[in-house]
Structure formats: structure tokens, C-alpha cells
């Protein structure tokens, strides 16, 4: 990139220097008479011709002296009294002096200009040679940077800009001299020339002024740039510019030029990275409201209106057909309306035509990259809805984007699958569950974060379902279910990938904000009351840009997340009384708690807020839509907090964290709690999987164990219940925690927790039986326990226990058991 900049600058400066040299060299290096006839050396010829004519006026002429002598002799011959001839002192006429002075000054300026041009050309060659001699890239870059800094420090650019100004000054002086020369000789000719000169000067002043007030005018020159800079400096120094001048400037201005951007803004605009785009604004405030007003011309941040943008695309596409290297640039331009809503075209026809041209350009598989497909998918989503959808384009894009395979149900999804699912959902080709599952299992990346943020920001539009259409999913129930399903998927992605630890994109905050806005809209006037393109307000953007698509956000999102306002929103959401399915609600609450927990571990002041929020959780049924998205150890931690409403101190060691979770669950499971047992299973099974020896502390639990509180600030002991000990027997076989005599005394009460424990034990027996003879060595079903299970009213427990009894017991035992 630096080399390109250098090349552009050097070529520009060298051309300028060459032009100057050609302009003036003819005056200095060639015979003056030849130059008169040269068509190229106009200025030098004119100047030389006039100088030849005028230089003698500065010296006494011998012809004039001889004429005077002859006249004097003639007078003496006719009159003898005439005195002897005495030559008069030579005097230069004022007009001749002025004309010569102006012409010589003009010539001097041209010579100085030639000299400077030759110097600049030499300097640039030296600059070029200085850093190109290095072959190692970083050394080359360092050398170039050092030389560039010096080049800027010594204002070489300004010096080059001075060269044409000198020539113009020279021409001006020449013109003045010419007028001074003509006026005494012939007045009508002088007046005519004066008028011509004035008109040319007027034209020059006019074009220069237009270039000053309009950056895009074709009359830009070093002089106009110099004046523009001077004007900007005057404004910077707060020197008042008369109102009249401003009025005239605005009247003459042919283009609604945006304010002169600051250097930083200029740098941002020049940066090709998508990250530099600020978060789109809410239509209720500024940007998006403008297209509804026919009198207002919507402006993008770059100051270009949509029609201009389309024209640029049209112009580029004509050359791109013959130059495929332009395709990335074209695609980048095509992607701009996605990033900058003000660039959305007024009519779909033109956009549709451009899309078709693009597809034709990309018909070659080698140039149709996945990123190109992403761009086109985004563009399609911006431009179409299901009524205007182009099925041919859709099918082509789907083909390039690919889709999720049937076998990768639990693997992380790449971004192109997300685009594919989202496009399909947007065009009502799917009911949204596939999209949500893809989001929940999305491969974490900065690009994915940005895409999801955009989807959250536009969710109030994309999630609208037309219930009359056949693709409406009746089992998803009310529209609000679809919102919850979608936001749950996003939160699952955030919490299962710990997105907030890696990225500064505030997805959690965005979901909370969007859900609050949508809920408020539904409660009041319906979702249609959000009539803008985006949900988020303008003020989400912050000074620290991150390399992300569609938005500019910073790392201060966590502060907003733990603001009182946001905390209240979370409380409301956790207590939202929905008639939605249990799986959706459970996943939503769990993922929200998990996402908040991850964020709270990053800052101390948030922990107390998080602990307070746990009191508002209500998870009783652990039936999930996306259980596979989470790592089991982290899932156990999140569930422990959500089920028991206890905060969990962040522990870096996952093994230690799991042990603390297990200890906490055992402590809290009195009385029994079905969801708690479920969490205990998840934690112990995972601990088994990763490190069986770490269960030693459990194996050393004595009969009738007393367990201390998991909260180190609270000193309390709790006796672990018999049914919990029995379940630990099941989970951590073969050690028997519950003594045999205690087993005999267990009383069956048919509560769901006991059924759960019994089923777990019977599952263990079945699994051991499947192993075969190994099972005999490990564990045998406890006859006393089976006898207890036989009295269960639960079909599964009773019949399975009965089956085991038939398999195990001798007849004598069967009679003895009084079945």
C-alpha cells in the first residue's frame, strides 16, 4: 500500500516537474530563433521574441547617434554659426523600463522554476533509490518511513506545489508587461487586449474559487488547494468569515459538500476495514427517517447519496466485465449499503439489475468466493423481502454458500452456513428453527459476532411471520416465541463460546436492549410500532473501534450491561411470564444467566449485581433445545447457579470448579430437587470423564456425612440425605455410601426425585448387565433396593425392578420377598 502511495506521488510530482522543464527548457537550451518557430515553446518563444525587441531600448542606439550627427552636420553646412556636435546623455523611457522589468522578472521566475523542477526530479529519484535498495520487507518499510517523515518535515510537497504557481506568476507578469507595451503605441489594440486578459483572469479566478468550495470540481489545482487549506486554517483559528462571503460561497457551490472532515475522520474513511463503520442509527432519531421525507436527501457518512453510489457501481461494472481484477472493489462497493443504511437505493429495479450483472460476472466458479457469496447474501437481504425475492439468485447463492450437513448436528457451524440459513429464513424458505440452531452452534469469530449483532439489530423486521403463509410454523406459537427462540440462540452462542471474553462486541447487552424494545412494543402497540430499520439507538458507538463488520463499538459495553437500567431490564426478562414452551424458556433463562455470569467475572463491581439477579431466576425443568452447545463442566456451573440461585466464584481450574459445584449441589439437595439431581449428574459424569481420581474426596465421605456449606463466608453443616447418598452410589459406583441397613429402611413415596434416582440406579444395572461378566465383578443389583423399587407406582421403575427380580432371585427369595 505504501509503495502504491509512493508511486502515485512520485509519478505525479515527476510529471509536474517534467512539464515545467519542457515549458522552460526551450528558453534556455535552444537557440532563441528556433524557438520562435517552435509550436511547443509558446511561452519561451513569446518571451524571447519580446526580449530581443526590448533589450535595445535599455541601451543607446548607434544608429540614432549617427542620425543625430548627420542631422547636426547638415545644420552646420547651412548655418556656420551652429556649434560643434555634442552627444546628448542617453535616457531610458519609463514605459520601456517598466516593460523590460516585467519581462525580465517573468523570465527569472521561469528560470527559477526550471531550476527547482530539476532539483525536485533529482530528489525524488534519490528518495526512491534510498528505500528500494533494501530487499528485506521490514527494513525497506523502516527506511521508507524515515525518508517519508523527513520528506514531510521539509515540506517537499509544498515545494512541488509551488512550481506551477511560479509559472502562472511568470505568465501574469508577462501579460502586464505586454499591456504596458501596447498602451502607448496603439490605444484601441491595448483596450482590446486588456479586455481579453481580464476575461481570462476572471475565468481563472472563477475556476479556482469553484475548486475551493467544491472538492469534486474538475478545476482543482495547486493554487485552489492552497487557498482551500488557507480557508480551513482561518476557520481553525476562529477568524470570523463575513456572512456575505459565506452566503456567496454557498450560493456558488454546486454540490452539497459535507463539512471538511477532520484528519481522523479522513483516516477512518480511507480505512478499507469494515470495522470503521459506526453503529447504524435508529430511524426514530436521524438517518433512517430521512428516506421517508421526499424533500430530504439522505446522506451517508461519506456524503454520497444513493443515486451517486448506484452510478458508481454502474460505471464500474461496465469496466469490470473486461477486467476481473475489479471484482473485489465492485463487491466492496456493493456491500456498502449494508454497512451504511443511507446508501440503500431508492428503487429495487436498479439494484436488482446490478445484482444480476454481478452474478454474471461471478459465473466463473474460481472468482465466486465464499466471501463474495456473503456480500451478495447481505445485499439480497437488504434489497429484497419474500415478496420481491428472486428465486434464481437465491438458489445460486444457496449453492455457493452451502448448508449444514445432516451429520454435523453438534459441531460448530461456519459463517457461510449462517448466511445460508439466514437467507433462507429471510426469504421464508424455512421456519427459523434451523437458523436458530445454526446460531447456537456457530463457530466463534469476530465476523460472526458482527453478523449476529446486525441480526439482533434488525430482528424486529426479520422475525415477523406472516401467519397466512404456509411456512409459518404453528408449533412455535405466537410471534413472541420466535423472538425468544432467536435471542436464546444468540445468547447460547455468547455463553457457550464465552464470546464476551474474546470480543468487545456487546452482544449480551444488544440482546437485552433489543428484547426490552420488542417486549415494550408488543405490550403497547405491537411489533409494527418499531418502524425503523434498526432497534439500537445512535449512541452505541464509542471511540475505540474494533475490527468488526457493520458496527463500531468499544470495550465499555460491560459498564452499560451493569447499569441500573440494564439490570432492571434483566430482572423483567427473567420474570417475563411467557406462555412459550418450557424448552425455549429454560434455554433462554439459562443462556442469559450464563452470559451475565461470564461478563460479571471480568469486573468486581458486577458480581454483587449478578448475585442479586440470580434471585429472579426460575428454572425448574432442565429440558434444553441446545444442550450440546455447552461444555459440560461449564454447563454444570451455569445450571448450579440458575437452579440454586447461588453465585459461583470464578475458579480458573476447571477440575476444582467442578468439585465445588458437586459439593455445592450435594449440600443444597435437601430437600430433594429434580433439577438439582440433573445438574449433579452432569457434573459427576463430566468429572468421571476427565479425571476419575479427582473423585477421591467424594469416596472418602463417611457414612452419614456432614457437608459444610459451599459458601466460605457461612459456617454451616448439613446432613446429606439417604436418597442423595443412594444416588451418589449410582453415580460413583462401586463405593456404597448408603449402608445396607439404611437401604432396607428407605421408604418409597413416589415423588419425582425418587423416581429419578431409582431410574438412574436401574439404568446402571442395565448398563452393567450389557457389559456382561464384568458386571459381576463390579456390582450386583441390591435386592433390598429392588424390593423398595417394586412398590413404585411409576411403570418404568416398578416393571424394571420386577424384571430384575425375576432375573436375579431364586424362587425361595421370591417367596421370601412376599411379592
Amino acid at each position, binding site marked *: 500500500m505504501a509503495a502504491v502511495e509512493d508511486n502515485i506521488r512520485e509519478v505525479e510530482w515527476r510529471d509536474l516537474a517534467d512539464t515545467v522543464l519542457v515549458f522552460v527548457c526551450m528558453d534556455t537550451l535552444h537557440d532563441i530563433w528556433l524557438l520562435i518557430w517552435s509550436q511547443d515553446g509558446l511561452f519561451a518563444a513569446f518571451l524571447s521574441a519580446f526580449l530581443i525587441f526590448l533589450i535595445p531600448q535599455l541601451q543607446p542606439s548607434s544608429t540614432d547617434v549617427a542620425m543625430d550627427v548627420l542631422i547636426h552636420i547638415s545644420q552646420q553646412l547651412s548655418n556656420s554659426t551652429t556649434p560643434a556636435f555634442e552627444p546628448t546623455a542617453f535616457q531610458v523611457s519609463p514605459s520601456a523600463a517598466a516593460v523590460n522589468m516585467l519581462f525580465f522578472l517573468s523570465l527569472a521566475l521561469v528560470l527559477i522554476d526550471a531550476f527547482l523542477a530539476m532539483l525536485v526530479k533529482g530528489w525524488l529519484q534519490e528518495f526512491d533509490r534510498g528505500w528500494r535498495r533494501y530487499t528485506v520487507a521490514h527494513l525497506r518499510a523502516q527506511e521508507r518511513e524515515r525518508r517519508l517523515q523527513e520528506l514531510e518535515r521539509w515540506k517537499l510537497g509544498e515545494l512541488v506545489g509551488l512550481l506551477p504557481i511560479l509559472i502562472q506568476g511568470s505568465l501574469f507578469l508577462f501579460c502586464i508587461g505586454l499591456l504596458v507595451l501596447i498602451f502607448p503605441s496603439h490605444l484601441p489594440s491595448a483596450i482590446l487586449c486588456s479586455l481579453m486578459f481580464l476575461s481570462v483572469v476572471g475565468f481563472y479566478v472563477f475556476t479556482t474559487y469553484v475548486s475551493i468550495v467544491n472538492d469534486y470540481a474538475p478545476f482543482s489545482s495547486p493554487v485552489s488547494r492552497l487557498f482551500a487549506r488557507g480557508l480551513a486554517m482561518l476557520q481553525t483559528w476562529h477568524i470570523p468569515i463575513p456572512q456575505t462571503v459565506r452566503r456567496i460561497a454557498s450560493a456558488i457551490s454546486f454540490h452539497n459538500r459535507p463539512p471538511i472532515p477532520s484528519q481522523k475522520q479522513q483516516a477512518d474513511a480511507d480505512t478499507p476495514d469494515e470495522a470503521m463503520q459506526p453503529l447504524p442509527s435508529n430511524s426514530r432519531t436521524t438517518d433512517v427517517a430521512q428516506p421517508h421525507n421526499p424533500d430530504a436527501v439522505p446522506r451517508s457518512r461519506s456524503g454520497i447519496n444513493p443515486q451517486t453510489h448506484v452510478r458508481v457501481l454502474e460505471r464500474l461494472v461496465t469496466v469490470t466485465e473486461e477486467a476481473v481484477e475489479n471484482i473485489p472493489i465492485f463487491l466492496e462497493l456493493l456491500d456498502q449499503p449494508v454497512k451504511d443504511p443511507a446508501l440503500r437505493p431508492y428503487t429495487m429495479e436498479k439494484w436488482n439489475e446490478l445484482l444480476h450483472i454481478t452474478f454474471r460476472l461471478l459465473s466463473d466458479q474460481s472468482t465466486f468466493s465464499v466471501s463474495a457469496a456473503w456480500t451478495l447474501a447481505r445485499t439480497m437481504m437488504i434489497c429484497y423481502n419474500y415478496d420481491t425475492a428472486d428465486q434464481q439468485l437465491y438458489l445460486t447463492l444457496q449453492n455457493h454458500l452451502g448448508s449444514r450437513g445432516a451429520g454435523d448436528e453438534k459441531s460448530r457451524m461456519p459463517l457461510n452456513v449462517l448466511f445460508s440459513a439466514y437467507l433462507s429464513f429471510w426469504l421464508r424458505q424455512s421456519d427459523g428453527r434451523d437458523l436458530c440452531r445454526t446460531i447456537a452452534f456457530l463457530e466463534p469469530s469476530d465476523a460472526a459476532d458482527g453478523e449476529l449483532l446486525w441480526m439482533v439489530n434488525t430482528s424486529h423486521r426479520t422475525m415477523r411471520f406472516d401467519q397466512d403463509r404456509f411456512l409459518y410454523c404453528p408449533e412455535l406459537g405466537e410471534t413472541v416465541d420466535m423472538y425468544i427462540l432467536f435471542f436464546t440462540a444468540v445468547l447460547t452462542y455468547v455463553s457457550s463460546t464465552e464470546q464476551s471474553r474474546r470480543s468487545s462486541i456487546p452482544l449480551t447487552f444488544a440482546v437485552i436492549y433489543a428484547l426490552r424494545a420488542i417486549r415494550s412494543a408488543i405490550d403497547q402497540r405491537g411489533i409494527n410500532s418499531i418502524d425503523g430499520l434498526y432497534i439500537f439507538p445512535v449512541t452505541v458507538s464509542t471511540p475505540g473501534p474494533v475490527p468488526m463488520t457493520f458496527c463500531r463499538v468499544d470495550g465499555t459495553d460491560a459498564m452499560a450491561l451493569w447499569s441500573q437500567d440494564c439490570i432492571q431490564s434483566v430482572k423483567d426478562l427473567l420474570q417475563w411470564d411467557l406462555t412459550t414452551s418450557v424448552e425455549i424458556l429454560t434455554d433462554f433463562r439459562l443462556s442469559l444467566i450464563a452470559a451475565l455470569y461470564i461478563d460479571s467475572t471480568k469486573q468486581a463491581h458486577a458480581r454483587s449485581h449478578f448475585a442479586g439477579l440470580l434471585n429472579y431466576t426460575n428454572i425448574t425443568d432442565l429440558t434444553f433445545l441446545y444442550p450440546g452447545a455447552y461444555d459440560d463442566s461449564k454447563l454444570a456451573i451455569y445450571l448450579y447457579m440458575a437452579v440454586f440461585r447461588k453465585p459461583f466464584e470464578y475458579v480458573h481450574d476447571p477440575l476444582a470448579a467442578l468439585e465445588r459445584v458437586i459439593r455445592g449441589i450435594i449440600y443444597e439437595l435437601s430437600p430433594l430437587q429434580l433439577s438439582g439431581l440433573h445438574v449433579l449428574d452432569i457434573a459427576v459424569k463430566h468429572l468421571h470423564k476427565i479425571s476419575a481420581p479427582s473423585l477421591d474426596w467424594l469416596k472418602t465421605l463417611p457414612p452419614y456425612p456432614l457437608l459444610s456449606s459451599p459458601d466460605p463466608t457461612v459456617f454451616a453443616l448439613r446432613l446429606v440425605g439417604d436418597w442423595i447418598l443412594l444416588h451418589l452410589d449410582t453415580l460413583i459406583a462401586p463405593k456404597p455410601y448408603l449402608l445396607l441397613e439404611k437401604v432396607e429402611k428407605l421408604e418409597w413415596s413416589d415423588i419425582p426425585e425418587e423416581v429419578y434416582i431409582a431410574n438412574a440406579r436401574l439404568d446402571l444395572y442395565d448398563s452393567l448387565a450389557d457389559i456382561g461378566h464384568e458386571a459381576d465383578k463390579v456390582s450386583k443389583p441390591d435386592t433390598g433396593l429392588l424390593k423398595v423399587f*417394586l*412398590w*413404585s*407406582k*411409576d*411403570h*418404568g421403575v*416398578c*416393571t424394571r425392578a*420386577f*424384571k430384575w427380580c*425375576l*432375573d436375579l432371585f431364586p*424362587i425361595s427369595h*421370591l*417367596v421370601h420377598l*412376599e*411379592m
Partner: protein
Amino acid sequence: MWVEHFIQVLCADYWSFYSSWKLLLSALVPKWTVLPSSWCRDFASALIFSTDIHGVPAYQFLGYRYLSLDERQASLSFLATLLELIKSRLTWVNLTSLENWLAELSEGLENQGAHTQIQHIQATMKQQLVDETLGFFTELPMENEWLEESLEFFAELPMAGEWMGE
């Protein structure tokens, strides 16, 4: 008594009827011959005499509609075995209910071994009950033609079985 509890569990859930029959056929039937006869009689009594709130016997309540033809034949065979055990305790109501239920069984089971066996038990026991009842009346002093006609009339009434059982 646990067996009655067990039968209630088997019949408690409509969705588990199929698995209940599968359990009986796969686990209980193979062990049936080695189980104590007293327990077997208790089980047979519970399955055949226990009724739900509508008075439907448990073996009928369990239903056969989800079983395959082979499973139905096996279950009928098992039912015949149970009936053999407790046939002496069958009442006129039990037999009538059994007769009606057999008549409603789908085609394919008729004239099969177990089906025939059950029909035979049902017919035999019914005849035996009629004979016993008639024998009881013949011993009464008021035997005459009018009485025979009355008995025949009552035997055809719906509540005749209940009355005769008493």
C-alpha cells in the same frame, strides 16, 4: 398385596400397555413354570378379577391393539394358562365378559390354539355353572314345568349371571 399393586401399575398408563404386555411375555412367561404356584394363582387372580373404575377386567383393559399377531397369540396363550389356574373361581359375569371380549378380538386369532382353549374353558365353565345351578333347582321341592320356563327366562336376562352367582 404387592401383586395387586403390580397389576395396577401395569394398567395405570394407557401409553405403557404395550410395554406391559411385552414385559409379561418376555420376562414373566419364560419363568412361569418355575414360579411358586401360590404366587402364580395370586397373579392370575389379580389380572383376571381386578377391574378398573368402569368394571373392565385388567387383562381386557391392557388391550391388544398394539401387539403383533404373534404377540397376541402368545398373550392369549398366557391368558389361557392363567384361566386354567383360576377357572374354578370364574363367575357367570367373568365368563360372559370373557365371551364378549373374545368375540371382539380381531380376525386371525379365531380358531387358533389359545383362542380355542379359552373358548373351551369359557364354554366348559359356563356349562358347569348352568349344570350346577339347574342341579340346585332340581333339588328344590317346587320343581315343575312353570319353574323350568321361568329359569330359562331368567337365564336369558342380563343380570342372570349375577343372580345365579349368588
